[in-house]
């Protein structure tokens, strides 16, 4: 059986002027793993047609005309699927076996207006269930639309009867919807969640951010966004968020990572709880893999939101929650159970395909009668891609190539890094990477103290060496080899892909008199307890064990710290397997703020000085983001992104930084 996935999305072909649009229809199959389907270069998605785009002046109601035209075209395109789905077609599969394949429509990827178009309903109705538009804000179950019932109502309407359901369900007069004859398919269950439009742009940006901005004031919100600590990979909104004009999925994701700690203190506890529930839900929706348990928590987040949402009405922000996008969240859990996690049905992927299959093709034409030229262009490109794939395949079959692929994967990877990577060398545990030669080969203790802020460096290093039984005592005249940064590689987990954290410890510098000075970066990290030996990643078979063990000890046995110096000892001090880091500790993770569900973090001091220590860098297991505890007061004017870590006294450990941290929090901390 083949689960057919169809996606349609109208797109404009020209960038600045003209109303030349194309309406491509894409097809792929659910048999192919979603990680492959997602890559535009894998050509796992094929263009099966261009729908006509026209103004339809011959209809009294252009909307109805569009609906009919769409359905009539789609049924022409999908006609062959009817027969194939009923009787099956013998096909040669990728593993060279012949199977009888039943292609059956499984999913339809589209944004809200097109979902309504497919479902033949008006745009203020839900395309999946028969909820009345007045009740879309309620967390109640309504009977789903079913293919048979809807087709029956439409047919009776076309026959001149006037069934009461027609108006109740907000249908539009379409005589022959394309999905009527498709075997085994129910179009209304095929409509998949659309994270980009529904959650990022809809629920988060248009509603939640808007509401919170009204409550706390745009100015306050901007100030808080500006004071967020700079973190590698996190977009820093230098001018606040209200001025941002161009919103992409990425901006939304970046904002969601820090939104809750920014709200904390500035809005009431109910508003914060509602916002938390929504952000939790969005995080769950982004999971690449769900278990029964995560789905249960996802549903819980939605229920939580509905139980506190009335607070927005009390604040006078909303009078109702009749919002189609809020309602769409209701269908997420059911859809995941039916068709798998929503990242496989992302509307971003057809939008990416537009660039290859429509926009580039359009540029190759002379702008007149462009559809026919585009089809020719695409046909040629597809032929070229096929030939290229064949040549590649043939190359791989040559004897030399086979030898290469047989050699040990990991070692060949490390080798190639040694040769080509100028700085990076893979260490034995494969967990962190650092420059092979420190960029600053001799730095005095005096410099470390003044420029790096490593006030107690000498004392901490003495303690470190004593504990390891070294007889040599470092003095104030010693020099050290100092690094700028290193990266930590967190392996993939089922629900989220692996991530790479960069940990920096370097003072500000300036490249020249005319260039602006780069600010200093001393990043914050989580450090595992010393007595916990770090599990080593040895081979694929140990992989899951490793992932689980890291999840278990991580929070209970670790502390936050700020890295001041990353360095290596000269060889006369003895040999140490890993480079060292001089850190300033924060207090142990113990108190959780009930309102945000995040750990409080404060600086740890000993005798009026920062509590410092020298640690081996293999104990540092990930970077973390500390967000100042703003409280209910205004952000002090002196707080800038560069210095909040120094100026603020109390922080939150941001749990929305990435999905790894989020899932761990939800599993163990709650």
């Amino acid at each position, binding site marked *: *059986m*083949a*689960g*057919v996935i169809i996606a349609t999305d109208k797109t404009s072909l020209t960038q600045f002027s003209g109303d030349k649009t194309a309406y491509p*229809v894409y*097809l792929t*199959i*659910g*048999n*192919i*793993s*979603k*990680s*492959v389907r997602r890559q535009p270069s*894998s050509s*796992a998605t*094929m*263009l*099966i*047609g*261009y*729908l*006509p785009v*026209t103004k*339809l*002046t*011959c209809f*009294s109601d252009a909307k109805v*005309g569009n609906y009919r035209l769409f359905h*009539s*075209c789609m049924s022409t*395109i*999908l006609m*062959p*699927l009817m027969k*194939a789905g009923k*009787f*099956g077609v013998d*096909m*040669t*599969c*990728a*593993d060279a076996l012949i199977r009888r394949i*039943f292609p059956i429509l*499984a999913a339809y990827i589209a944004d809200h207006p097109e979902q309504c178009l497919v479902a033949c309903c008006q745009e203020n109705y839900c395309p999946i269930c028969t909820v009345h538009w007045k009740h879309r804000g309620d967390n109640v179950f309504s009977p789903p639309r079913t293919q048979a019932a809807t087709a029956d109502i439409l047919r009776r309407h076309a026959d001149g009867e006037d069934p009461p359901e027609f108006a109740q369900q907000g249908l539009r007069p379409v005589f022959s919807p394309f999905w009527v004859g498709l075997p*085994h398919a129910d179009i209304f269950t095929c409509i998949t969640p659309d994270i980009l439009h529904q959650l990022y742009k809809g629920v988060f940006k248009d509603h939640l951010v808007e509401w919170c901005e009204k409550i706390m004031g745009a100015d306050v919100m901007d100030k808080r966004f500006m004071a967020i600590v700079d973190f590698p990979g996190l977009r820093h909104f230098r001018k606040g968020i209200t001025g941002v004009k161009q919103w992409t999925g990425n901006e939304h994701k970046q904002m969601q990572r820090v939104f809750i700690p920014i709200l904390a203190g500035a809005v009431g506890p109910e508003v914060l709880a509602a916002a938390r529930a929504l952000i939790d839900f969005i995080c769950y929706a982004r999971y*690449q*893999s*769900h*278990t*029964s*348990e995560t*789905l249960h928590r996802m549903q819980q987040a939605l229920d939580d939101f509905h139980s506190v949402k009335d607070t927005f009405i009390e604040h006078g922000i909303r009078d109702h929650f009749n919002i189609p996008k809020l309602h769409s969240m209701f269908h997420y859990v059911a859809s*995941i159970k*039916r*068709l*798998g996690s929503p990242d*496989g049905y992302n509307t971003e992927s057809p939008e990416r395909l537009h660039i290859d299959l429509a926009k580039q093709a359009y540029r190759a034409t002379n702008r007149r009668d462009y559809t*026919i030229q585009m*089809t020719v262009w695409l046909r040629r490109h597809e032929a070229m891609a096929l030939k290229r794939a064949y040549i590649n395949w043939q190359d791989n079959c040559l004897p030399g190539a086979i030898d290469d692929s047989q050699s040990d994967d990991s070692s060949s990877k490390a080798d190639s890094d040694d040769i080509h990577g100028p700085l990076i060398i893979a260490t034995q545990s494969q967990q962190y990477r650092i420059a092979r030669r420190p960029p600053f080969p001799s730095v005095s203790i005096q410099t470390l103290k003044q420029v790096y802020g490593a006030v107690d460096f000498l004392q901490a290093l003495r303690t470190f060496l004593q504990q390891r039984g070294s007889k040599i005592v470092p003095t104030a005249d010693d020099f050290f080899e100092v690094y700028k940064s290193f990266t930590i590689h967190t392996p993939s987990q089922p629900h989220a892909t692996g991530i790479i954290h960069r940990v920096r410890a370097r003072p500000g510098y300036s490249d020249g008199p005319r260039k602006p000075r780069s600010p200093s970066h001393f990043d914050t990290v989580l450090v595992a307890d010393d007595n916990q030996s770090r599990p080593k990643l040895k081979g694929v078979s140990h992989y899951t064990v490793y992932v689980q063990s890291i999840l278990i000890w991580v929070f209970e046995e670790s502390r936050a710290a700020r890295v001041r110096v990353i360095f290596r000892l000269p060889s006369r001090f003895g040999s140490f397997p890993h480079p060292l880091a001089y850190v300033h500790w924060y207090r142990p993770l113990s108190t959780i703020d009930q309102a945000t569900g995040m750990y409080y973090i404060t600086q740890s001091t000993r005798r009026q000085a920062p509590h410092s220590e020298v640690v081996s860098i293999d104990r540092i297991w990930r970077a973390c983001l500390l967000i100042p505890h703003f409280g209910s007061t205004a952000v002090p004017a002196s707080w800038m992104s560069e210095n909040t870590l120094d100026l603020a006294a109390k922080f939150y450990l941001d749990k929305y930084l990435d999905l790894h941290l989020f899932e761990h929090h939800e599993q163990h901390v709650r």
Partner: protein
Amino acid sequence: MVTIVGDLTDETGKPLAEEVELWLRDPVECIERLIGNPAFKDSISYVPERVYADDSLTSRRYDEMWTADWWWDVQVRLKCGKLSDF
């Protein structure tokens, strides 16, 4: 790629008509190309699965389309109705 020019005429009460172009290719042929592409050999599945996240088989895992319920259900229906080769 096969392209066919489909001229569709639409009318409401008034006998006004407009000719539009529709470009299409056979979806079944496309599916055959996709399923038979040897590049996808290692990342393709032909049968539904139920994947569990724990040993006691109480926690289901949902990620790819073939690990979710729909595929399983339709496959059962197909089997009851007609012959299938799985």
